[in-house]
Structure formats: C-alpha cells, structure tokens
C-alpha cells in the first residue's frame, strides 16, 4: 500500500515546481501526462508482483521536494573517484550535469548532451530523445522521473567508434534532507562501436536524499559494451533506478553490478535481446547489513534467435538486512536456439537477516538451452573447520569466507585496475570489515 498521501504530496510538489522545470509548453504537457498517469496508478506497492519484497514505507518517508541546487568542488569529488588508469568523466550532481566537474571534451566518437540544456534549447529534440514510460508497476518510478524531467545526460558513441578509455558516469548525491532528485540517463552505442561505461554512485556530505534514476540504453549491431555499476552510497542515502535496455543483433553487453551502500536500493533492469545472437552477461553482488535493503529486479526478454543470457548474482545479508533478487527470463517464440543461464547464490550471516531469491524462466519455444538455480545458505562448516584448524578464530574464519564469496565476483571485473579498489570497497562493506582488512 502507498502510505496515505504520498501521491498527493508528489502532485503538490509538482504543482509548485512545474513552472521552473523548463522546456516550454510541450514539456509542460508531457510532464502533466506522466504525472496524471502516476496519480491514477499510484507508486507500486506490495500487491504488485515484482514489488512485494520492498519496504514501501521507507519510500514514503521522502518528502519529494527537489534537492536544492548544490555546488560541489573538485577537491571534494576527486578523492572519491575510482582509480581508472585514464578515463573521460561525466558528473551528475543531484541529477544535473556539472560541466565544471566533467571532463569529456575532444573525445572522438563520443558525444555528451546535457539534457537540462536540451530541454531549453530544443524541447522537441528532448521529447524525441527521452522514452515515455509505460504505466505498468515496473515503470512507475520512471513515470515519476518523467513527471519531473528537467535534467540528466545523454551519452552517445558514434557507429564504429571504439573508445579507448572508459567513460565514468558519476552520480553525486548531496542533499542533507529527505529530498528526491530525479535524473535521466540515455546511453546510445552505435553499430560496431565499443564502450566501457563505469557508473559510480557516491554520496558527499550528510546525504539523506532519494535518487530516482530513469535510464535507457540502446546498443547497436555488433557493438560491445562493458558496464560497471558501483553503488557506494552513504548509510542514509537511497536510490531507485529503472533501466530499459535494447540490444541489437550480434552485440555484447557485459554488466557488473556492485551494490554496497545506502539504506535502500531498488534496481529495475528490463533488457530486451532484440537482434539475432545478441548476448548479455549480468553479474551482480549485493550486500545488505545493518537494516539496509537491497532489492534487485531484472527482466530479460529473448526475442532474437540464438540470443544469450548469462546471469550470476550473489547476495549477502547480515544484521537485520534484507535482500531480494527477483530475476525473470522470458524466451519468446522467435528466440530459437536461445541460451539462458541464471544463477543466484546468497549468504545469510545472521538469524534476522533475510534474502528472497526468485529466479524465473518462462520459455515459449522448443530448442533452447535454459538453466537456472538459486541457493541461500550459511557459511560452509567444513571450510570453517579447515580455517580454524589452521589457527584462525571463528570470527576471522567467517570474515575470510564471507570475503571469499565476494572475491569470485571481484575477480571477474573487466577493468583490472579497479579490482583492488573494488576489493577494498567490498571488504569495507562487510560486517567484519576490520578483521578482513587485517587479513588482506
């Protein structure tokens, strides 16, 4: 159930903010339509199939004011950036592109568009660029983003362009109040192009806001995209994201998600393998300790023949943490020869922790190769004894095994220079962080 008044509060904030959001009459109409649809349907709640594990009361705690315009200095941000050997940088502060902190000019084949500017200068172009969200429950937070659409970024890679260095898209959250900031991200990768995109969510200051991101990704034929997504929010911060991805024939999409911070993360990914032999690999690792919540929903639709999904998600819950992995793979009648493999492995470290794993396969055609499996358990007693028999105390043995559970995923990260940073971030997110640091 939506808490009473959430939608009313959203509508009231919209009435107050609408005149300042930009884009003229066309965008005023567009936002009003999205708001009307949202008001009519409400935010998703427990009764919606894919939303039953989320603590909706937590979402209702936010007051849906826009975050005040914050100024972030490079000195604050730079120490927080990932140690990529060399990269282009695109920085969104509370959903707005910050040109001063960004650094992407003069990169052949790369185009970066400020959606805020585009709304002012070319409202029709912005209308065409940004997807109109649907009304089903999984798209309602995207509707919310659309109703307040005012900022964000589009990243385009020209057909055939092979970007040599990664593009880092940094989402900075700053607001110290329970505000909500909206962001739009559009990533378009042309046919035959290559892109490594590192998305990094960080918090500066005493942040307590909810970030609501609506993202779109379109990958052209034979293109190759590596997408690393690192959520490293502060303990009070929250994030909801709705990604829609379309993959054309023969392309490769390799996503690595590390969900390590924030009090609430709800991540939706709807990915469509449209073209023949399009392939995606989805790797994920989440950690929910203290009273944190991580709720990951993925939906992969195989449309093209011989399309491939390899999904491997791991989750850890400790304390009173709650995690959910809900993954649906649908193989449509057109997807002959599809190959789908879905794994979910989860580790419970305390009696009050909870993980709901729900792998689902829906197959509408013969001649496909599909496997899935989910396990949720505690640490292995035989391994624990082995470590203790080597003199490690039980807490250290548990810490080492917990870290090992994550290490597998870190070892697969596509950018070797980020592995040490990821290792240290993961170690820092685990319950026995001091013990693990001592052991490494």
């Amino acid at each position: 159930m939506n808490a009473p008044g959430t939608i009313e509060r959203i509508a009231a904030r919209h009435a107050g903010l609408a005149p300042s959001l930009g884009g003229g009459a066309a965008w005023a109409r567009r936002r009003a339509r999205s708001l009307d649809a949202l008001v009519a349907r409400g935010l998703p709640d427990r009764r919606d199939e894919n939303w039953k594990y989320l603590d909706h009361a937590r979402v209702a705690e936010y007051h849906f004011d826009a975050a005040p315009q914050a100024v972030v200095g490079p000195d604050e941000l730079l120490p927080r950036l990932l140690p990529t050997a060399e990269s282009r940088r695109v920085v969104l502060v509370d959903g707005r592109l910050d040109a001063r902190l960004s650094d992407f000019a003069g990169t052949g084949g790369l185009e970066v568009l400020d959606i805020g500017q585009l709304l002012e200068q070319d409202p029709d172009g912005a209308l065409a660029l940004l997807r109109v969200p649907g009304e089903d429950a999984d798209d309602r937070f995207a509707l919310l983003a659309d109703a307040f659409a005012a900022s964000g970024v589009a990243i385009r890679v020209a057909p055939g362009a092979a970007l040599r260095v990664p593009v880092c898209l940094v989402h900075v959250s700053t607001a110290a109040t329970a505000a909500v900031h909206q962001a739009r991200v559009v990533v378009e990768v042309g046919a035959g192009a290559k892109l490594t995109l590192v998305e990094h969510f960080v918090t500066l200051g005493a942040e307590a806001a909810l970030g609501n991101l609506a993202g779109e990704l379109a990958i052209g034929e034979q293109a190759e995209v590596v997408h690393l997504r690192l959520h490293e929010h502060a303990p009070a911060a929250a994030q909801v994201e709705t990604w829609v991805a379309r993959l054309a024939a023969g392309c490769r999409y390799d996503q690595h998600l590390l969900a390590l911070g924030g009090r609430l993360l709800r991540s939706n990914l709807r990915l469509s393998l449209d073209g023949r032999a399009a392939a995606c690999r989805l790797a994920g690792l989440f950690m929910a300790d203290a009273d944190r919540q991580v709720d990951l929903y993925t939906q992969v639709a195989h449309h093209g023949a011989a399309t491939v999904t390899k999904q491997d998600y791991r989750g850890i819950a400790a304390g009173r943490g709650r995690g959910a992995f809900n993954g649906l793979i649908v193989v449509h009648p057109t997807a002959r020869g599809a190959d789908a493999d879905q794994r979910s492995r989860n580790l419970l470290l305390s009696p009050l922790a909870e993980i709901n794993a729900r792998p689902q396969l829906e197959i509408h055609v013969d001649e496909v190769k599909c496997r899935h499996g989910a396990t949720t358990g505690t640490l292995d007693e035989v391994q624990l004894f082995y470590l203790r028999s080597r003199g490690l105390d039980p807490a250290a043995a548990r810490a080492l095994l917990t870290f090992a559970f994550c290490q597998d995923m870190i070892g697969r990260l596509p950018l070797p220079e980020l592995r040490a940073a990821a290792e240290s971030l993961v170690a820092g997110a685990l319950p026995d962080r001091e013990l693990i640091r001592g052991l490494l």
Partner: protein
Amino acid sequence: MSDSGRMILEVRDLRVRAGERLILDGLSLAVRAGEVHAIMGPNGSGKSTLTGVLAGRPGYEVVSGSATYLGRDLLAMPPEERAREGLFLAFQYPVEIPGVNNVYLLKASLNALRKHRGEPELDAFEFLNLVRSRLTEMHMDESLLNRGVNEGFSGGEKKRNEILQMSLLQPTLALLDETDSGLDVDALREVAEGVNALRAPDRAIVLVTHYQRLLDHVVPDHVHVLAGGRIVTSGGRELALELDRRGYDWILEEAATA
C-alpha cells in the same frame, strides 16, 4: 629417538560416537617428543575419526575417555586453540576454498600462531621470503600461492599444500591423515621429505595410513594397528612390513581370538 622424551599426547580409553555409531571404542595411545608413530588399519577402522577428534572436527560425540596434549585436556580446547598450541592436522581431503587466496591463509595462520606465542607478526617481506624458501623445498610452483586455497589443485598439489602449511607452522604434534593416498612416486617422496624435515627431538608425528609405502620414506618408531575402534596390536617398523605382505585379515583374526 627416546621413550624418555616428554609426553606430547596421551589418549586414554577413548570412546567416540558419530551419529548413532560408536567409531572409537576404547582407544589408547601415548606419543612422546621425538617419536614418529604410524597408525595403520583397514578402511572403516576409525583412522580418520581419530585424527578428526584430536583436531576438533565438529560432528563427534566423545562418550568417555580422555586425550591430554602437553598436559592439557585437548578435547576441551576449540580447534583454533589446538592449532595455536602446536597441533597440526594434514587433511586426507584438503578443503577447497575458492576466493581465499592461498597466501592470505598462510599468512593469517602463521600470524595467529605467532601472536598466540607472544611473537611479533611477520611483515609482508619476511613472510614472503619464508614462504618462498618452503615452496622451493616442496618443489611447489609459486603460482600456487596466488590461487584460491586448494582450488583446482591436483590431488598431489593439495597434499603438498598441506605439507607446505605444516612446514611453515612447525607444529609440535603433526597428525597426517592418509597424506600418502593418491600420490605418485615423486610426490610421495617430496611429501616424505617434508615430513622428515620436521622430525626433531621436541616434536612428534603421527602418520595415519592404509599402506606402508610412506613408511619406506618416513621410518616410524612405533607402528599400531587400529581395528574396530581400538589399537589391537603395536610393534616396530617390521609390523608395517608384515602388514604389507600379509594384509590385515590375520591381525583381525588374532585380535578376535585374543
């Protein structure tokens, strides 16, 4: 080798149950400093239960009897304390731990023991030098250090890794549970060299084995035959040779009629 060495391990009339089954049924054994004991026996005689109970493996119930290690009640100590006090078990089936770097475990283990003895932890440089010298002795490839513990190791590599750990930790009492099983001739000789290198007047070694071939390389002072959960006969090296020649049946028959 002397019987006058201090008592390292004294097991008295030990009865141990695993689930409903009584596995050890009145086992007694005394191991003194400087000695190498071989415990031999047919499958199912309780060999692995004995080493498991002594090292603190969960899943056993001690019904009666005692095990005293360096004057302390061994069975009351948690496994990590046994290890820190110098007891080492080389596993029959070394456990694979993907994601735990072999070198992390070696370092954590060595430092846990040093800390317990009140010695400073080794810094990274000292530690690596020490490990490298042991690796060379064991004819092990350095690449094994940076793999997951036993992950994807061959049978021989796993056993060598156990001996590597042992030679690094320098235990007072080493229990080797069928360390010879599944080894080719070269690996067997190298494992035996590792064990022989540990022989010292202030340590003791207990080899648990089904076959006597390891004893060609590591010559024991005492040989015991374990059957039906107790030691049915003891002797010297010649007993192992006789077992190798005649099998276990005659011993079991003698024990049954005794």
